[in-house]
């Protein structure tokens, strides 16, 4: 019995066709594109779209994962398996220098830590590979400053975004021209919402990291956050671990990604849960809440 009727998937077909168009356009126009692969659900969808776009050929660009060293072990395991399964080339980049010098979120705070282990690392990884275009799975509905992001987002030679000076983007005529050293971030999922992503994962049976599914996990409850205990999460004085049935709504680094209480252990249950939900998915990400407009500031500096 089909869970979702064909008529309900009509808009997914339109989104899929648009994303495939964007992937092909960028693959044709750039000399060295790369796909930023973050292991999350959006990356999984983007990867499936790339498989479709170039079938029966292989995906004509490598995947790049920026590994902060603070990711959940389940994510790394999934990443290595899935890249092999899809038959894509996988590049893993770490800011080894910062890690060797002891960079961590507890001592540096989330902003500095993100700056070093994500943004800096990303820019270095892109420069090292000589990539002139990078696909990212960001969606415009994720956060306010992303609503004005272009599908082709121009970055200067330092990888910075200038929100007030973006190229106009009309029809599906994307302008990817750039000088040496400059680059374009390409967002094929711009027009998808979180809900669309889940519907598509369901309809296409796309594999995702098990952390998205609810199960009993050992956690510590801190303020409004539920932090899954993993190597690296430091208990504060007076905190006690407890077992909570929970799941991740979006995946990030262990110390900065909270879980939500949930019984949803299948994709349909997650979809059902979302409908009764009234909180946005990045709400459990500590980094977005540092100050108002913090995502915009990070993006200006080169973050996705």
């Amino acid at each position: 019995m089909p869970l979702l009727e064909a008529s309900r998937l009509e808009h997914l077909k339109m989104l899929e066709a648009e994303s495939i168009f964007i992937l092909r356009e960028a693959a044709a126009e750039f000399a060295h594109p790369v796909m930023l692969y973050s292991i999350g659900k959006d990356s999984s969808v983007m990867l499936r779209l790339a498989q479709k776009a170039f079938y029966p050929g292989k995906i004509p660009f490598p995947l790049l994962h920026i590994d902060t060293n603070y990711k959940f072990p389940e994510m790394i395991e999934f990443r290595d398996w899935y890249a092999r399964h899809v038959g894509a080339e996988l590049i893993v980049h770490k800011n080894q220098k910062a890690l060797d010098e002891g960079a961590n979120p507890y001592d540096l705070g989330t902003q500095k830590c993100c700056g070093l282990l994500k943004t800096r690392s990303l820019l270095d990884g892109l420069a090292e590979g000589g990539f002139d275009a990078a696909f990212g799975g960001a969606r415009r509905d994720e956060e306010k400053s992303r609503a004005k992001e272009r599908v082709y987002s121009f970055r200067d030679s330092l990888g910075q975004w200038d929100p007030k000076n973006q190229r106009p983007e009309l029809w599906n005529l994307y302008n990817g021209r750039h000088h040496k050293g400059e680059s374009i971030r390409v967002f094929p999922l711009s027009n998808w919402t979180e809900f669309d992503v889940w519907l598509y994962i369901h309809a296409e049976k796309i594999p995702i990291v098990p952390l998205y599914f609810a199960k009993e996990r050992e956690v510590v409850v801190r303020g409004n956050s539920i932090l899954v205990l993993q190597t690296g999460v430091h208990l504060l004085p007076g905190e006690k671990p407890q077992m909570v049935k929970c799941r991740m709504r979006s995946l990030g680094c262990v110390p900065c990604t909270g879980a939500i209480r949930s019984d949803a252990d299948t994709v349909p249950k997650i979809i059902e849960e979302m409908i009764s939900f009234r909180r946005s998915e990045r709400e459990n990400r500590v980094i977005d809440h540092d100050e108002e407009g913090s995502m915009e500031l990070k993006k200006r500096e080169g973050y996705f």
Partner: protein
Amino acid sequence: MATTPVEPTPETKSGIPKPVSAGTLLRFSTAGSVDDGKSTLIGRLLYDSQAVLEDQLASVKKSKINRAAGPIDFSLLTDGLRAEREQGITIDVAYRYFSTPRRKFIIADTPGHEQYTRNMATGSSTADASVVLVDATKGVLRQSRRHAYIAHLLGVQHIIAAVNKMDLVGFSQDVFERIVAEFQQFASQLGIRNVYAVPVSALEGDNVVRGSKRMPWFSGPALLEYLEQLPASGASPDAPLRFPVQYVIRPDASFRGFAGQVASGTLHAGQSVVALPSKVKTRIRSIVAFENEPLSAAPGDSVTVTLEDEIDISRGDILAGEEQLPSVGTALQAMIVWMHHEPLDPHKIYLLKHTARTVRARIHQIRYRVDINTLEQLPSKKLDMNDIAKVDVKTTLPLFFDPYRLNRTTGSFIVIDPLTNVTVGAGIIEGAIEEQQQASQRRHSTREERVLRFGHPSGAVWLKGRPHVAELLERRLFDEGWHVQLAGPNDFLAHELVTVAKAYQLSGHITIFSPLDDGTDQKRVVRAIYGPDAFFAVKIDDDTDEEATERIMKVLRKWRDKQSDSQKENS
């Protein structure tokens, strides 16, 4: 942490509640400025259809910047950039998403002020419908007219006039009807046939998502109800096939697939198609897909096809239905929206991206500029940012195009500055310019034709004893798109000067003569060949190379502009 209760929703057998997402996608644009309630209207649509999430609402409530407009300031939900929140204005196009049980919506939310015409055009370029806001307390202002005009120009199929702030006019039917009549009259001038007008109060929610008890005299659907049942325009499947080839897939020698998105018409195995520019006829062998190979493809589908015959096709080519081919040509007429603070330069070579093809082009003539407030057609020599004009375009390589009103994909292009790489304009194709082309194929090119293509007549710069300036000047002019060459002291013998100068003069180039000294005679001879109007003897005192070059370029630009103006007057 408790979740806000949502209205109970009917459940399907599978346990997935009915609302949220369904059917097709509808893209609509809005335009407006600070005080006409646009942000409030969008905020209301998002809030009432529950696309505004609790934590976003919380962050609006705790925002430091406050424009205080009732309990919830909806506009803070929609203005995404820091600068916008601080200044209380909408600068850029923002995209918003929400779903109802019937369909998914994408709103292109644009500022309404004249200085943001280009943003309105951007938002309209992909829209199926436009919601034009009219302030009930003010009537149909320029802003509403402007938005309707731009939406219509960009081919938006459905125009909806949302007469807002009905709460401030006592929900008066008379006021509404007077405004609608005024709007209809303006719309019919533009050739807009269907306008749906709806009286709303965005602030209080009347006729936005649900009908209004306070306006029993209005029986039409509320704004959202109307948008829910609109057909998404899209290209017609009945139109002739246009399949621009985006990417060639060749995993091995045995497979060659052509990937692209169907712009119009349909594709199916066995269908006859013509490849352009080669004009070779072939048939579709199959439509290839990752799984479940489709039997046919409709407009908007991204597919990969294989062909019966091995023919040479690459990115930028197009597969077309043989019953009606697109126009093929290098001369076309278009409406253009200029988008950059650097004005259009009719002499400059731009890049033009049209489907998957990028060619060099000149926008060499401005027929008229449109005053977007009065719709008057005004003569104009230049185009500034946000100007809309009818222009003649000449490309170096042929395009395969249709008029925009028939096909949004093959009828549109963007203009890119080749030096800065910035998108500077957007073009809406009206049709081919044919007259001169055929005649010119029969005889050799004339001086006038060369001037048209080069952007300037032939001329001579006499620059004695400063070889570095000569070289720098040549490079700068070349980079600016001039047809220029350098004639240095070693390039010919003294007695050849007359022959050489005559040949150079005929070629239409700008020639920089760079002798070691003035044989007075030589200078006089060259001056006689070019005539005094096209001969520039440059005296350089102690200017630096850079200063001297800049000074000469200024003189040449001025001369060129004067020439092209007088040519226009003659024609």
